């Protein structure tokens, strides 16, 4: 049966070659779209890991004339107390510019037992965890006891822990080139770059007196229902305390919307374009198959005349189309499988494999739909009429 079908396909190799190429390229386009969709969807399913409603970000720049580390620290501690004393404010935290939901990234290379990773490097303080309501997985967050210790305390996230230590506990381990960073805790993964991007590896260090002048963000969590009137008061308070600084207040909810938009828009545009390409291809396939079948009326008529049922005729034509699809899918999968093998875009292999499976199913369904109607039409051919024509 298959041998016979292959012979039939081989006899028309020139025309079939074009059809196969077309299916192959459609497969690659569908694969690209599915990879993106699967990746975004998997990330979307994961918990956010932080509370962003009612959290505001204050952008400022350090313009203090003094360079004395202690007086800088004293000034900002004072500012923190002023903000915290306002009735609508729950918690206040200083942090570096890579706050949640910004494109801003700071990465530092790190080696540990032959593994090289590039974690995001975030500076924060004791209240950071409470402002964003991050959950601890093991160990603890920064506290007062971290003052004046010889090894610099750091907190890492689950992804980084997985990368460095696998299943082992990370608390208490020393890392860094000169083993001067001591892990005191591991937090649950937090999607810092929005709903559709994976967490990545994160490393948190406590802001110390020397790094305070480089800090430019304050995270403020407020009670629900706080309005713009209070925001304006908060703004005036900070602006009057730091007269020379440029102040901007943003809301994490808006920042999340913006960063999600950046992830979604390319996917939507790509899906629309791919959708139209596929419709185009489907119509083309349909037309070509339909025409081919019409050309083979006499062959089909002969088969019917010697006793083939209408079902077997239609099955033959549909399976011919499906074999063509299989040939192109084998070639396509060969290209697609290179992505997880060569680890091209640093995505998990599972994403590629799911996308691969989905695209294979998609192309089969597409070809099936396009060949069913022509197949049924062929089955309806009366042998007497078909043979008479010739």
């Amino acid at each position, binding site marked *: 049966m298959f041998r016979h079908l292959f012979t039939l396909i081989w006899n028309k190799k020139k025309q079939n070659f*074009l059809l196969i190429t077309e299916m192959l390229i459609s497969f690659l386009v569908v694969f690209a779209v599915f990879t993106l969709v699967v990746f975004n969807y998997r990330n979307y399913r994961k918990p956010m890991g932080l509370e962003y409603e009612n959290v505001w970000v204050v952008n400022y720049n350090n313009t203090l004339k003094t360079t004395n580390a202690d007086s800088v620290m004293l000034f900002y501690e004072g500012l923190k107390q002023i903000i915290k004393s306002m009735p609508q404010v729950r918690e206040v935290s200083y942090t570096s510019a890579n706050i949640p939901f910004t494109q801003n990234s700071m990465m530092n290379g790190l080696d540990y037992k032959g593994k090289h990773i590039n974690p995001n490097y975030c500076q924060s303080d004791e209240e950071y965890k409470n402002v964003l309501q991050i959950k601890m997985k093991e160990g603890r967050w920064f506290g007062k006891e971290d003052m004046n210790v010889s090894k610099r305390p750091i907190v890492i996230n689950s992804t980084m822990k997985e990368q460095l230590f696998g299943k082992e506990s990370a608390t208490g381990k020393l890392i860094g080139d000169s083993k001067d960073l001591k892990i005191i805790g591991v937090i649950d993964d937090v999607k810092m770059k929005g709903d559709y991007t994976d967490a990545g590896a994160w490393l948190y260090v406590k802001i110390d007196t020397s790094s305070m002048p480089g800090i430019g963000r304050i995270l403020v969590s407020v009670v629900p229902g706080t309005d*713009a009137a209070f*925001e*304006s008061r908060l703004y005036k308070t900070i*602006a*009057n305390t730091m007269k020379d600084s440029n*102040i901007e207040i943003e809301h994490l909810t808006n920042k999340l919307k913006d960063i999600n938009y950046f992830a979604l828009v390319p996917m939507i545009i790509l899906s629309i374009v791919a959708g139209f390409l596929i419709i*185009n291809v489907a119509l*083309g396939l349909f*037309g070509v198959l339909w025409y081919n079948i019409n050309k083979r009326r006499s062959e089909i008529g002969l088969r019917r005349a010697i006793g083939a049922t209408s079902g077997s005729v239609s099955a033959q034509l549909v399976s011919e189309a499906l074999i063509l699809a299989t040939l192109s899918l084998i070639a396509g999968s060969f290209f697609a499988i290179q992505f997880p093998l060569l680890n091209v875009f640093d995505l998990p292999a599972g994403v590629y494999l799911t996308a691969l499976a989905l695209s294979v199913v998609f192309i089969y369904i597409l070809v099936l739909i396009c060949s069913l109607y022509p197949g049924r039409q062929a089955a309806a051919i009366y042998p007497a009429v078909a043979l008479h024509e010739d």
Partner: protein
Amino acid sequence: MLKNYFKIAIAVFKRRKFFTFISLFGISFTLTILIVLTAFIDKVINDNYPDRKRDRSLYVNKMTERGDQSYNGEALSFYFLDHYVRRLKTPVKLAVSSDYRGTNTYVNNKKISISYKYTNADYWDVTEYDFLEGKPFTKQQIANAERVAVISADIKRAYFGDVPSVVGKYIEADNVQYRVCGVVKNVPVTLYMLYSDIYLPYTVSKTDYSSNTGYRGGYYGILLAASSADVPKMKKEFEQMVKKLPMSSKEYNKIYCPAETFIPAYLNTGNEDKSGLVYALTAIAIFVLLVMLLPTLNLININITRIMERSSEIGVRKAFGASSQTLVYQFIVENIILTILGCLIGIILSLIVLKVLNNASLIPNLELTLNFTVLSVGLLTCLIFGLLSGVYPAWRMSRLNVVDALKAQ
């Protein structure tokens, strides 16, 4: 002869309406994508509002200092532009402006997010903003550090509402009151070197602009030559100046700071080895190839089918002495007629899509339009399409054997 081909073509299109529909659908849709893409690129890089003197300008927007271990790239410092670039002899004017930064203002308990930018007086001569009212601030006002501001039409509406004139009124931004001295037409944010909601004199900057005596900071420069013929000379002089710059620190051994015309500067990545222009072109080429490849293959398939269907017609013509060349020519003409039809539908479709996109205002103030460049790109694509999808089937057809062709039906 052409008229005959045209008549035959129309007859053929009418005979197999389904195939005609598929072909037209493929062509017009592909063209729509390409036209929208071109309109976007054209708008972002070719629209010369507000910097209309692009042909005699060079843009400096980034400096990268490299060492064996370190790599730092950023916009320029005011000091660098004022001390090194201003001393060049060829430029007649030097526009200096900061990058745009964000702040808030609160009117009637409503929050407005504002971006602001510091500029010098020459900025207004080098660029040609359309002033809806008022005028730019002057050198004198800058020297006196007067708190004056040029605002955009958007901010005027958001802050003051629908009032006829706001010149002389005060606008509060970043906790400071500025007197409005002019209102300009909006600039889309994609022109990141020129976009802002409020333009302020650099002397009122809260951060002390003169204290940073390093090379890097948050400022851009536009160098204006007396004529476009002077631009290469200006570029050379700038390069010479950069070459002579002393290293700012021992960790660096190389400074990369090009003065470029608008497009290369717009795409400047700050890395000599990775030209942004090459990146952008590769990305666009891959996208276009993908978008065009599938419909082309589809068209070739359909065309072959259509030709085979007409094999008896071809057989008769061949039998009566038509050469292969004539047949190929006829078929290509037919195909080009079809693509041009598709092209027309595509242009109508793109007009609709552009209208929808503009109304959705994905990027505020970015009005996409069809213009001559965009249309000619569309036409060119059409021709390529018609030729690509016509040549191979036509060649197949011309090789048909007369006897086989006649026997087929």
